[in-house]
Every structure is written in C-alpha cells, then in structure tokens.
C-alpha cells in the first residue's frame, strides 16, 4: 500500500531529477489511495496553475496511472507560500 511518505519521496525525486528541487512538500492520506499534497517549488514561478500541476504529474510519471488513485494538490511558488504564512 502506498504511504503518504512514499508519495512525498516520489514527488521530491521527480523534481530533483528535473533539476528543480522542491522547497517544501506535505502529503496527507492514510488509505493508500487518496492523497492531498502541498508542493512548494521555484519551478512554479511564471507558470499558471495547469502548468504547475502538470509539473507534479510529470514528476510522478507512470506512478500517477499505476499506483495513485486520487491526488488532490495545491502548488505554491516560494513567494506565494511565504505570503500564505507557510501553511494551508
């Protein structure tokens, strides 16, 4: 069963592999299928919401189809995350 911490590692590794590490990642969800993620990365600067979510999907690659049933996410640039008070 996929855990939230494994999913967090998948996202982190995917962004690292693209050369644009995440500043902060939070993943919640304990049923192995439904997860909520917050991803903060400078890679999102200058991108719209669709493009930001596409980067996360890209980081997850095939796992998005094979292992993850449902992923709800919110993406932030470091600046937006700062403005949000570093919490959701």
């Amino acid at each position, binding site marked *: 069963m996929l855990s939230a911490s494994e999913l967090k590692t998948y996202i982190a590794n995917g962004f690292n592999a693209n050369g644009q590490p995440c500043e902060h990642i939070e993943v919640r969800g304990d049923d192995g299928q439904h997860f909520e993620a917050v991803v903060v990365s400078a890679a999102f600067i200058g991108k719209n*919401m*669709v493009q930001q*979510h*596409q980067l996360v*999907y890209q980081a997850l690659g095939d796992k*998005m*189809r094979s292992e993850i049933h*449902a*992923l*709800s*996410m*919110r993406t932030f640039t470091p600046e937006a995350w700062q403005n949000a008070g570093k919490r959701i």
Partner: protein
Amino acid sequence: MDTQAAIKDLVTSNPVVLYMKGSPKFPQCGFSGLAVQILQACGLKDFVAVDVLADPAIRDGIKVYANWPTIPQLYINGEFIGGADIMRSMYEQGELQKLIAEAV
C-alpha cells in the same frame, strides 16, 4: 473521426464541457461530483458532460489531449481550464464565475 479530433470538435463547439466519471446526477467519483457542484454554484444550469466511463477511448484520449492524467477536466471555449483542485481554487477567487459568465 479519430478520438483527438472528436474531443477537439466537442470542446470547441460548446462553451462549457466537463469530462467526468458518471453523470452530473450520478457522479461516480468524489472529484467529478465536486466539479459538477462547482459549476452549478457558478450559476451554470446547462453544460455538456461527457461520462468517460462509457468510452475507454475517450477516457484515455482526454488524458492525452490535455496532457493531464486525471478526470474530471473542464474546458471553456475549447481551452483546458483544469481539474477539480483548480476549479475549486478559481471558484474561491471568483475567477471561474467570471470565465463562465463571459462564455455562456
């Protein structure tokens, strides 16, 4: 007509199209249900809803079309707007209501 062309034809010839699992009355997934509720909360009475569970070619094809691996997917005037998270975020900021009011 192939699947990609059929999708393009549908989304460009209708102001609002939602690809979802199930129907607006009987959504088969929480995210699809949420997407329908958001559209209704925007005051939209009528929109084209496509049940991807009814057609495997569309279910796979729509993911390719928008380079987006999940359902639901919202299109306004042919443009891919986003999935349920983005719809919710735009609704909370009042942007989705504006887009829809301009489109219909």
